[in-house]
C-alpha cells in the first residue's frame, strides 16, 4: 500500500517514473496522467502488472513478470522483456501487452472488445502455456514461436476453448487440441497478413529485437486460429462426422464390406420404408371373397337354398330364373317354404338388425304355380326310393332333374308323407298342396308306386334291380308310455291322420294332450276343429312348442301345463302323480314317432335310441351299404325342411357317384354378422311383393355390385371389372359376370373396403 501511494504521488508530478520494485503486486494499477505516463519497472514485478491500465500509460518491465499481467487492462501499453507467468491479459478489454519471452497458462482469457475502442493485443515472442485464449472475446494474439518453452507445441494444450471472438496468429507447431467448434485453423489472408507485417516492427522495437523482422515475416510460416461464429457452428453437425460418412467409411468396412447379417439371412432387405406403404410391404391385403361364405338364410336352411341369389335375380328382373332356381332345390316351395316351415332362414336373417327379416313365405308361395324345370338328359340309371314323404320326394325330384329315373314306393295311398297325412289343412292349404303334388307327379323321370307295403323280400328285389336304394320311410310308429290306462289313449299320429281323412275321430268336450310339442299343438287345433271345448296340453318339462303351431293352439284357447307327470288315464281324465284329475273324455299322446323298419336287412347298421332303431348314415346319407342311402326321419327326427335337405344331399351324392365325380358337401362357413355393414340400410315398412323383399335383402356374402368400395377407397385402388361368363354351372356363370379388384400398388391396406362393404365381401387378410 505504501509503494502504491508513493507511485501514485510521483505520477502527479512526473510523466516518467523509474520504479525499483521488489515484487510488489498491482504495479501501475489505474494510473493515468494527462499527456501520458511512462513507468519503467526495474526490479522484480509482482502479480497483476499494469492491472486496470489506462489509455496513455506505458509500462516497461525490464525483467520477467508474475501472474495476470494486464489484468482488466483498458488501454495501457505494457512491455515485459522477460517471461510472464499465468493469466496474462486476463479480462483485458483494450491496450497492448508485449512479452519478450513466453507466457504461462491461461493467457488471453476472458478478453473483451468494446466496439468504441480498438481490440486488445497480446504479443508473445516465445510460446504460451496450456488453456490459452479461453473465452477469448476480442483479443488479438501474436505468438512468434521464437525460443519457445515447448518447441513441439507453442500454443499449449487446448487453446481457444469457448473462444467467441478475436484472432490468434501463431508461428510454429501446435498439437491440434483446439476445439473445432470454437476455432478454425487457417492461413492469414492478405488483410490479416498486412496487419501483422505493419505491426511487427512496433512490437520488435518495443522488446528490442528488430533483428528478428525478416525471420518473423515469412508468410508461409504463419497460421491463424480464427473464431467460429455461432452461425457457423449451427451449421456444423454436433458431432465431428456425419453418420452416413461413418457408415460408409468405417462401419461397413468393419464387416468385410457388407451387411453384418448377410451370412445369417442372405438377401435380407433392411432398407428403410415409409409407414404408410403399398404392395408387398403392407401387413394386410384386401380380398374380394364373393360368395365364399354363406348368408345366414342359406347356412341355416337345411336345403341351403341361396335366397340371396334368388332375390338378386328378382331385383334384376329375372323372375323366371329366380323361380326356376328355387325349384331346383325343392319340389315343395309353396307348401314348405311358404307354409309349414318354421323358416330358419328368417330366424337368422341379417335384416333383423335393421328392421325385420325378409318375408320368405311370400317368395315360397310365389313359386307354387310355376312349371318344373326341364330335366337333363338321361344318365341311364334308376333309383328306388322307399317312402314318398318330403325326403323321398326331394330325392326323386333331384334325381329326375338330373336325368336319373326315380321310382317311389309309398305305403300310403298318396304321396307327401306326414305333410299330406297329418299337417292340418289350416296350416297347409290344400289348394297349394295339390298344385305342387301335381307338378311333382308330372315330372317325367318320376314313377310312383302307391300302397306298397315293403318287406324284406321286396327290398332284396329293389337292391337287385336298382342302382341305388334310398330309404325314406320316415317315422310312423307312435311312441307310447305304459302307464295304467294307456290303452285308452289315442296317438297323435293316428288322430291327425284320421282328422285329415274323410272320417275323423270324435273327440270329447275336454281333451288332454300328453306332450306339448308342435305336433301336440296341431292335435289341439284339430281337436278344437272337431268339437272340443277345452284342450289342455301337459308336459313333463317346459313345452317345446314354438312359432305358428303354438300361436294357433293358443288362439283356440289351449292351456299349457308343466311340469305334469301322468300317473294314470281313466275314463274321466288324466290323473297326475300329484293325484290331481285333469278331466278329459279324450286323451291323446303326442311324444313323437319312431321309424318302423320291418323290411330292413340286418346288414344295415342302425342305432338304438329311446327304444327304437334309427338308420346310421354318413354325411352323404349313405348307410353301411354303399348303394343304400337313408334320408329323413329314419335317420333322426326333424323338420320337413330337414327331410327335403337330406333328400337333396343324398340325390347329389348319387348323381356325383353315377358321374364318377367327387361329391362335395356344403362347406361354406357362415358369414359373421360383424362382416356386414347393415347401417347402409334404413328401417322401413315391408311390402307384400317379392320385389319389395328383394329390395330389402342385405345380400349377405354376395356382392350386390353397389360400388361403395370403389367410392370409399381413399387411394382409388379398387375398380370394377367385367369378366366373360364361363363355366358349366349356369348359376356360377351368372354370378361371375363382374368382379371388384384392388390394385396392390395403390392399396394402403386401410381396410375401408371391408369396413364399408354392406355384404361382407371384402376381407382383410394378413400377409
Amino acid at each position, binding site marked *: 500500500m505504501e509503494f502504491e501511494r508513493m507511485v501514485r504521488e510521483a505520477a502527479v508530478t512526473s510523466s516518467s517514473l523509474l520504479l525499483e520494485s521488489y515484487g510488489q503486486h498491482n504495479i501501475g494499477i489505474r494510473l493515468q496522467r494527462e499527456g501520458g505516463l511512462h513507468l519503467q519497472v526495474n526490479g522484480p514485478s509482482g502479480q497483476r502488472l499494469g492491472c486496470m491500465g489506462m489509455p496513455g500509460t506505458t509500462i516497461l518491465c525490464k525483467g520477467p513478470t508474475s501472474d495476470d499481467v494486464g489484468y482488466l487492462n483498458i488501454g495501457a501499453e505494457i512491455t515485459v522483456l522477460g517471461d510472464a507467468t499465468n493469466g496474462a491479459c486476463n479480462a483485458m478489454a483494450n491496450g497492448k501487452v508485449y512479452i519478450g519471452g513466453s507466457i504461462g497458462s491461461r493467457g488471453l482469457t476472458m478478453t473483451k472488445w468494446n466496439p468504441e475502442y480498438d481490440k486488445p493485443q497480446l504479443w508473445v515472442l516465445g510460446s504460451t502455456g496450456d488453456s490459452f485464449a479461453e473465452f477469448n472475446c476480442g483479443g488479438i494474439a501474436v505468438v512468434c514461436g521464437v525460443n519457445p518453452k515447448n518447441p513441439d507445441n507453442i500454443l499449449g494444450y487446448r487453446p481457444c476453448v469457448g473462444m467467441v471472438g478475436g484472432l490468434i496468429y501463431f508461428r510454429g507447431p501446435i498439437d491440434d487440441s483446439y476445439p473445432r467448434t470454437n476455432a478454425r485453423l487457417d492461413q492469414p489472408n492478405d488483410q490479416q497478413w498486412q496487419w501483422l507485417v505493419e505491426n511487427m516492427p512496433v512490437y520488435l522495437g518495443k522488446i528490442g529485437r528488430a533483428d528478428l523482422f525478416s525471420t518473423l515475416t515469412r508468410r508461409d510460416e504463419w497460421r491463424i486460429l480464427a473464431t467460429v461464429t455461432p452461425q457457423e457452428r449451427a451449421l456444423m453437425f454436433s458431432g465431428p462426422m456425419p453418420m452416413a460418412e461413418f457408415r460408409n467409411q468405417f462401419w461397413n468396412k468393419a464387416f468385410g464390406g457388407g451387411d453384418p447379417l448377410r451370412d445369417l439371412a442372405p438377401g435380407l432387405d433392411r432398407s428403410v420404408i415409409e409407414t404408410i406403404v403399398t404392395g408387398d410391404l403392407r401387413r394386410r391385403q384386401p380380398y374380394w371373397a364373393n360368395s365364399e361364405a354363406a348368408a345366414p338364410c342359406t347356412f341355416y336352411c337345411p336345403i341351403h337354398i341361396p335366397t340371396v341369389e334368388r332375390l338378386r335375380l328378382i331385383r334384376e328382373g329375372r323372375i323366371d330364373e329366380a323361380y326356376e332356381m328355387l325349384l331346383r332345390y325343392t319340389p315343395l316351395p309353396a307348401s314348405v317354404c311358404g307354409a309349414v316351415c318354421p323358416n330358419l332362414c328368417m330366424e337368422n336373417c341379417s335384416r*333383423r338388425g335393421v328392421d325385420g327379416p325378409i318375408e320368405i313365405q311370400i317368395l315360397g308361395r310365389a313359386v307354387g304355380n310355376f312349371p318344373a324345370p326341364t330335366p337333363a338328359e338321361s344318365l341311364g340309371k334308376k333309383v328306388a326310393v322307399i317312402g314318398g314323404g318330403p325326403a323321398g320326394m326331394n330325392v326323386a325330384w333331384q334325381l329326375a332333374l338330373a336325368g336319373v329315373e326315380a321310382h317311389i314306393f309309398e305305403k300310403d295311398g298318396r304321396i307327401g308323407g306326414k305333410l299330406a297325412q297329418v299337417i292340418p289343412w289350416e296350416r297347409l292349404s290344400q289348394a297349394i298342396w295339390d298344385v305342387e303334388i301335381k307338378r311333382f307327379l308330372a315330372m317325367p323321370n318320376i314313377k310312383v308306386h302307391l300302397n306298397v307295403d315293403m318287406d324284406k323280400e321286396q327290398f332284396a328285389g329293389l337292391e337287385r334291380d336298382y342302382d341305388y336304394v334310398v330309404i325314406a320311410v320316415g317315422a310312423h310308429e307312435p311312441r307310447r308310455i305304459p302307464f295304467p290306462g294307456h290303452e285308452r289313449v289315442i296317438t297323435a299320429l293316428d288322430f291327425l291322420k284320421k282328422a285329415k281323412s274323410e272320417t275323423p275321430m270324435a273327440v270329447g268336450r275336454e281333451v288332454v294332450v300328453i306332450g306339448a310339442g308342435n305336433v301336440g299343438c296341431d292335435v289341439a287345433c284339430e281337436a278344437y276343429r272337431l268339437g272340443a271345448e277345452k284342450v289342455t296340453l301337459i308336459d313333463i318339462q317346459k313345452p317345446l312348442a314354438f312359432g305358428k303351431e303354438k300361436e294357433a293352439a293358443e288362439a283356440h284357447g289351449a292351456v299349457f301345463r308343466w311340469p305334469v307327470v301322468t300317473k294314470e288315464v281313466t275314463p274321466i281324465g288324466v290323473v297326475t302323480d300329484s293325484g290331481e284329475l285333469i278331466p278329459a273324455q279324450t286323451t291323446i299322446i303326442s311324444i313323437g314317432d319312431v321309424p318302423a323298419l320291418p323290411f330292413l336287412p340286418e346288414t344295415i347298421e342302425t342305432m338304438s335310441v329311446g327304444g327304437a332303431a334309427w338308420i346310421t348314415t354318413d354325411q352323404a346319407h349313405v348307410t353301411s351299404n354303399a348303394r343304400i342311402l337313408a334320408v329323413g326321419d329314419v335317420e333322426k327326427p326333424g323338420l320337413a325342411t330337414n327331410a327335403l335337405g337330406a333328400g337333396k344331399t343324398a340325390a347329389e351324392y348319387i348323381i356325383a357317384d353315377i358321374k364318377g365325380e367327387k361329391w362335395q358337401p356344403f362347406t361354406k362357413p357362415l358369414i359373421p354378422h360383424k362382416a356386414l355393414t347393415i347401417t347402409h340400410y*334404413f328401417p322401413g315398412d315391408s311390402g307384400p311383393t317379392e320385389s319389395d323383399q328383394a329390395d330389402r335383402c342385405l345380400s349377405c356374402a354376395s356382392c350386390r355390385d353397389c360400388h361403395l368400395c370403389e367410392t370409399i377407397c381413399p387411394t382409388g385402388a379398387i375398380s370394377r371389372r367385367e369378366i366373360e361368363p364361363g363355366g358349366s354351372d349356369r348359376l356360377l356363370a351368372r354370378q361371375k359376370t363382374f368382379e371388384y379388384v384392388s390394385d396392390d400398388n395403390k392399396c394402403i391396406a386401410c381396410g375401408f373396403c371391408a369396413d364399408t362393404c354392406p355384404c361382407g365381401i371384402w376381407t382383410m387378410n394378413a400377409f
Partner: protein
Amino acid sequence: MVSTRSVSVAPGSLTPNDFPWIIEHREDRCTLCGNCTSVCPKEAIRLAYRRQRLPRLDILSTKRGSEYRTFTGIRQETAIANACIGCGMCAMVCPNEAIMPAPNTNEHRTLFFNNQKGEPQKRGGRRNVSGPNLLDRIVFNRISMLTDPALDAGRHEFNLTTTLGRILPPEDFLDRIQHGGWIPPTREIFPFVIGSMSFGALSPNMWLGLLQGVAYCNEVLGIPVVMCTGEGGCPPWVLRSPYLKYIVLQIASGYFGWDEIIRAIPEMQCDPAAIEIKYGQGAKPGDGGLLMWHKVSKLIARLRGVPESVDLPSPPVHQTLYSIEESVMKMVQTMSTAFGHKVPVYPKISASTSAKAVLNNLVRNPYAAGLLIDGIDGGTGAAYNISMDATGNPIASCVRECYLDLVAQGRQNEIPIFAAGGVGKNGNIAQNGMALIMLGASGVHVGKYIMQAAAGCLGNEKGRCNVCNLGICPKGITSQNPKLYRRLDPDLVADRVAEVFMAIRTEVKKIMAPLGRSQSLPVGMSDAIGIADRDAADLLKINYVC
C-alpha cells in the same frame, strides 16, 4: 320401425369407455384417407358407419315417421384382442389432426379382462408406476464454492470413465507384477452402459443401429460406451469385427447363440468388453428371458439355434447350478478361462434382499469382475404383468446397502457394483445415473431410456404401447417383422445414440464440476447428495435436506 332386437351382453362385454385408451375422432376434420387404420398395430380402429334417426316431430303436422342418415367415423374395437394401446401412431400419420388416443381418466374395466383364456396378462415395458421415483428426488448439494476450486464443465477436461473389472489391492498388484502373477483384466468404460437387450428382443435395425451408435461414440466422439448383447447371441460378423470390443456378451439360462460365439473365438480381432452372466433381471425376478413366438423369425431362429415360431422361455435359473458358490465356480471361471483370463466376467442379478450375500461371495472370488444389480423398475420385452408390477426390489437401497457392506470390509475399490432398473425412467438419465454412482455404483446400465431416446419408443408407465412381446412394435424397435422394423433407420438410431451420449457426457460434467471433481467419478460420494425425505435419507445414509 326400428329394430328392437336385443343386444346380448356377456360378462366380458366392454364399451370404448371401458378401455385404457379412448380413440377421439373428429369427423369434421377427417379426410377419410385411411392412414390411421392402415398403421394401427392392433387393428384397434376401423371405419364405422353410423345410422342416425331423424323423427318428424312437428306437432302440427299429421305426417309421422322418421328419416335416417348415415355418417362415418373412425371407431375403436371393443374386443380385448384389439384394444387400443394408446401408441398414437394414428395421430402420427393423420394429416388433419383428426384422431388421437386419449387416456381414460376413469377406471378402466379391461383390467379385469386382461386374463383371457385363463392366461394372465403378459406385456413388454416396465413397472407401470409413473411419477418421480426416488432417484429423481435426489439433489447434488455439495457445491464447491470458495472452499475449493470450482470446475468449469465446459472448459475443463474430465475423466468420466469407470472401471469394469477387478482391482487388486496395491500390495497384491505390486506383488503380482514382480512375480509375473495374473492381473485381472479391467476396462475403462463410460459409466452409462447400454443394458442387455437381445438380438431378438430388439429388431435387427434397432440392435445394429445401437451398435453403430456405440461404435461412433467410441471411434468418433471418444466416449467409451459399451453395450450388452442380452441373451440372444451376437451376429457372427459382429463377433469377428473390431467393434466386439464395445460389446458385453451376455450368457443367460437360455444359452442362445453361444455356439456361434464359441465358434468365433479363434477369429476374433479383439476381446469383447466383458462377459455378463445373467442370473436375474429386475423387471421379472424369478423369471428367465422370454421371447414369444411372434418374434422368433427365421433370422432369429438361425442365430439362436432354435426352430422358427416357437416360444423361447429361458428357465429362471441356470439348469445345473444350485448355489452361488457353484455358479461362481462353474460359470465365472469357465467364461474367464474361455477368453484367456483377459476379459472381465461378472454376474447380473435381480435386486433383492439377498444381493449382499451374492456380493460377499463374489468378493472372495478372484475371477469375479463386478456385480450388476437390476432393480424393480427395469424393463423387459416380455413378462407377466404381475412379475413386472409387483416383483422385485428398488435399486437405490439395494446398491447402497451392498456398497456400504464393501466399505465396511474396506473392499469398495476392488469390485465394482453396477446398477440398473429405471435409470432415466422419467427422462433424468444423467441425474439418475449420477445419483446411483454417488450411492456407490461404479456405473449404470440403461435400456428403456435408450429405446425411448434413440428410437422413439412410445411406451410409458401409464400402460401406453407395451406390446414389445407381440412383435408388433409400431416403431420397429422390438419387431422381427421387416414390414415394421424397416420403418426404423439404423443411421438415425445411431445418430441419436451419439447425441444422447454427448448430452449425458455434458450433464455428467455439469453434475461433477460443482462438486470439484473432474478426474474420477464420484463413486460413493454420498456426502454430495441429499433428499427431502427423512426415511429415505436415513436408510440410504445420505443428507436429509429440506
